[in-house]
């Protein structure tokens, strides 16, 4: 029923409503810098009208509720892209780190050391009897070995570094999942009364955004208003008020295995290659796929270098011959075939090798030892000891699972040559390098201790050898340009390809990072344009609500005046 009381009622509702407007504006202003905060606004509606003889009479304003400005579609897209951004950020930073180990734009890279090593062979070929050239060659050999060792070591360190980040990342994922589930529960409880839990929902969205940075997820809002978060392969991380943990272990093949710990002890192993987006996928895939590829390429290059240099080196003799020598490789079992028991056993082919004996520096005898890949180390020892020519001069034995050969007489020395079987390479006898991969590449201690054993020359069929002979050094120097490395490239070509590939991959990750950075910042702007707080806008609203409040107050004073007027008529 209309009347002055109704006017007062109307004014009182308006006062309360405008005051609420000021409060909500204050909340907005206060949270201008709060991450994940969505601008809120009061939803004003007209109050239910009162029937009157003149038709429904308006009864002023009513508050329908407080709404948050939130666009679920933009937010979902933003989370998705943030996930990819974080993936490429992690990849890019890991690859940049790896790229610095192969930074050939600065001095002292492998490429340069490789050139210097072969140049040292050229210098030795120019002056095969020169002590200085021999020492310089050994130093270059050591430099090259160091260069490979340190790169290999750094790759291992980088993998370790990535591994150390995986477990904390998974802990973070688990804690975000748990937070989402907890918030869901609070939201359900709060909203059961029919009111929107705006700030709790903001927190929940923030947790989802943080989770997206760590691992690629999809979110679904179910009918009852709760949220499900699943991995890209469909396994749920959060389902309603339940959350499920992830855990990681190192597998037997040194890869990271991620397990999803489902309800009632139901565990499932996640194929890490199906993970997409997020820091975790980048960490695992960089550690288990990208870096191992480069490790493998580097190892292949080192192995090719060891094999080719040693194949050639073992064909020759130095200024001095051996009075005794020992192989650098150990067999796993002296009775097993060389092909399977030596690290480089796969290099051995059917063939033979020559051993030349000098007595007092004059060729004395030469013998041929036939080699078959199926021979065991014991077989080789026996065939040397029982050789009709060599047996009397030399004694071969198995020493620490390596081949050891000693000249019987103090006046005798021996040298090797014409090894068509590559057994010397595989056994590490009369070789230049030791090891079988980048990490173990080294210079043979025999030549290091006695540079005169660097085999620049060769023995003739009779065993004659001379100090001015540079044939082997020439052949070794020529390896620089020979298509010997992996894939039939020269060593430097193969290495350059590795560096270029690594550079391209790092560049690609960086470009992707930049691209997604742009996308994310664009989507963030879109999200902010909906949900963000603009202080000037809030100030305007503040003024607006203040004025409305003043107007409502004015209404009260007007009603009061109406009462006074009415009452005065009774005096």
């Amino acid at each position, binding site marked *: 029923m209309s009347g002055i009381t109704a006017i007062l009622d109307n004014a009182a509702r308006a006062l309360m409503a405008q005051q609420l407007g000021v409060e909500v504006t204050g909340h907005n202003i206060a949270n201008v810098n709060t991450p994940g905060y969505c601008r809120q606004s009061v939803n004003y509606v007209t109050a239910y009208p009162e029937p009157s003889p003149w038709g429904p009479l308006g009864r002023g304003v009513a508050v329908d509720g407080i709404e948050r400005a939130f666009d679920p579609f933009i937010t979902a897209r933003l989370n998705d892209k943030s996930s990819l951004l974080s993936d490429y950020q992690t990849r890019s930073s890991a690859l940049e780190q790896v790229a610095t180990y192969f*930074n050939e734009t600065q001095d002292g890279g492998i490429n340069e050391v490789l050139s210097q090593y072969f140049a040292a062979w050229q210098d030795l070929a*120019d002056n095969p009897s020169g002590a200085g050239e021999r020492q310089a060659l050994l130093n270059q050999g050591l430099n090259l070995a160091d260069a490979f060792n340190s790169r290999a070591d750094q790759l291992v360190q980088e993998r370790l570094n990535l591994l150390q980040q995986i477990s904390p990342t998974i802990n973070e994922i688990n804690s975000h999942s748990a937070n989402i589930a907890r918030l869901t529960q609070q939201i359900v409880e709060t909203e059961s009364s029919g009111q929107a839990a705006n700030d709790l929902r903001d927190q929940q969205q923030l947790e989802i955004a943080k989770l997206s940075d760590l691992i690629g997820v999809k979110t679904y809002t179910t009918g009852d208003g709760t949220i499900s978060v699943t991995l890209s392969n469909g396994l749920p991380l959060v389902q309603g008020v339940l959350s499920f943990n992830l855990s990681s272990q190192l597998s037997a093949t040194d890869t990271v295995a991620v397990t999803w710990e489902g309800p009632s002890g139901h565990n499932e192993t996640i194929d890490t290659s199906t993970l997409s987006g997020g820091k975790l996928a980048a960490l695992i895939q960089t550690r288990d796929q990208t870096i191992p590829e480069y490790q493998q390429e580097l190892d292949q290059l080192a192995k090719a270098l060891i094999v080719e240099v040693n194949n050639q080196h073992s064909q020759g003799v130095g200024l001095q011959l051996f009075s005794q020598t020992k192989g650098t490789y150990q067999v796993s079992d002296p009775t097993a075939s060389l092909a399977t028991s030596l690290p480089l056993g796969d290099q051995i082919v059917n063939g033979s090798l020559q051993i030349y004996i000098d007595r007092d520096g004059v060729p004395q005898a030469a013998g041929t030892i036939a080699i078959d890949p199926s021979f065991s180390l014991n077989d080789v020892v026996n065939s040397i000891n029982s050789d009709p020519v060599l047996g009397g001069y030399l004694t071969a034995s198995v020493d620490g699972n390596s081949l050891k050969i000693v000249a019987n007489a103090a006046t005798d020395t021996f040298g090797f040559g014409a090894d068509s079987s590559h057994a010397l390479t595989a056994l590490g006898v009369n070789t230049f390098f030791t090891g079988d991969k980048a990490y173990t590449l080294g210079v043979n201690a025999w030549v290091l201790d006695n540079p005169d054993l660097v085999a620049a020359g060769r023995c003739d069929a009779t065993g004659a050898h001379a100090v001015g002979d540079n044939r082997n050094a020439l052949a070794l120097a020529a390896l620089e340009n020979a298509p010997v490395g992996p894939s039939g490239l020269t060593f430097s070509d193969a290495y350059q390809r590795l560096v270029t590939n690594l550079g391209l991959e790092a560049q690609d990750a960086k470009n992707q990072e930049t691209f997604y950075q742009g996308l994310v910042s664009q989507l963030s702007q879109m999200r902010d*344009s909906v949900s963000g707080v603009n202080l*000037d806008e809030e100030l305007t609203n503040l003024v607006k609500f203040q004025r409305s409040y003043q107007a409502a107050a004015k209404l009260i004073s007007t009603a009061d005046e109406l009462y006074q007027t009415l009452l005065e008529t009774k005096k």
Partner: protein
Amino acid sequence: MRVTMSTMYNSIQGNLQSLAGDLQRINASIASGKKYQSISDNPVDVGAILALSTENSQTVQYERNLTTAKSWLSMTESTLQDISNIVQASMALANQMATGTYNASQRQAAAQQIQGYLEEVMQVGNTELNGQHILAGYRTDAPPFTEGDWQVQPAVMHLTSGSSGTAASGGTYTGTTSCTYLVEMVSGGGTGVGTYRVSTDGGQSWTAPAVIPAGPINLGNGVQVTLGGTWNAGDRFSIPVYRPINYQGDTNNFEIAIGTTNRLVINQVGNAAVGGDQGANDLFQILAQLKSSLEANDPGDVGASLEKLRSYQAHITSIMAGLGASLDRVGMKENVYGALKDELTQQISDRGDTDLVAAVNLLNTKENAYQAALLSSSKVMGMSLMDYL
């Protein structure tokens, strides 16, 4: 579109960050002089620079090899030139002595001169370069030419027509200087009939005639000769005694790499170039025979040796022509590598070195942009409705 506080401040921060990143990169490229700081800056260019650097370092190495080649070839050339000069002098002397106008004592003196030449050839042939004997094949650690033990050489026969005399020289020489025993038949006949006399000074003085014995005749200092057949009066033969010079090196050619697939022989093998192997062009043997012929006062044999010297002279001249050609090739290669090195250095620099003018220009541009961004940001940040309420 609504602009919010976070949009505004994020974009200000983002833009300033990006400009600061650009400034840092340009600064690094100017300070280091290198266009790229990491292989991911431009993997393709970095790969190309690596390949060019490898080629460049090989070129430098081949240039070093060529320096070695040049010193070996020049040294060999000058050694052979010295030997050739000695051969010329020997030929001049032999030419004189082959004529009948000189007597035995003059030829004895000439023989001494030839002995001197012979020793000099040996000395020159044992030349070393950085402690390596360049004419020894691979056996560079020992002098290639050494004197052997005293050897009584086979008799050089000059028989009159119808003579069937044979002389087998032998014995072990106990003397200390080289000499030539000259034997002449005083009267014809075989063992026990014919008589001979011996001279050790080219026929200036003779021993008393003696009858040819059945066994070996002692000519003195352990030199023996056994005569057989039937001799005529006036038959002569000479037995030279000298220490032959032997070649101790091997016959390997010393090669070095002067290109990825090219090798160049930079030595000469001593026995082929000089001798010591008793072959057709063994200068030592030719000179030793010349000397013996002079000692035996035999102008005819001197003439024969002169012919051999001429043939040797042609031999060594052709070897030296080969050396000259090799030196030319080295010179040409040096020019090629010099030009290639310049080209490679230029290319590496073009691809990898900072273009300072462009970089400084860019720095200025970015600096201006940064200043402008700071200015506009401060203006935007300064604006608020609060200032007016």
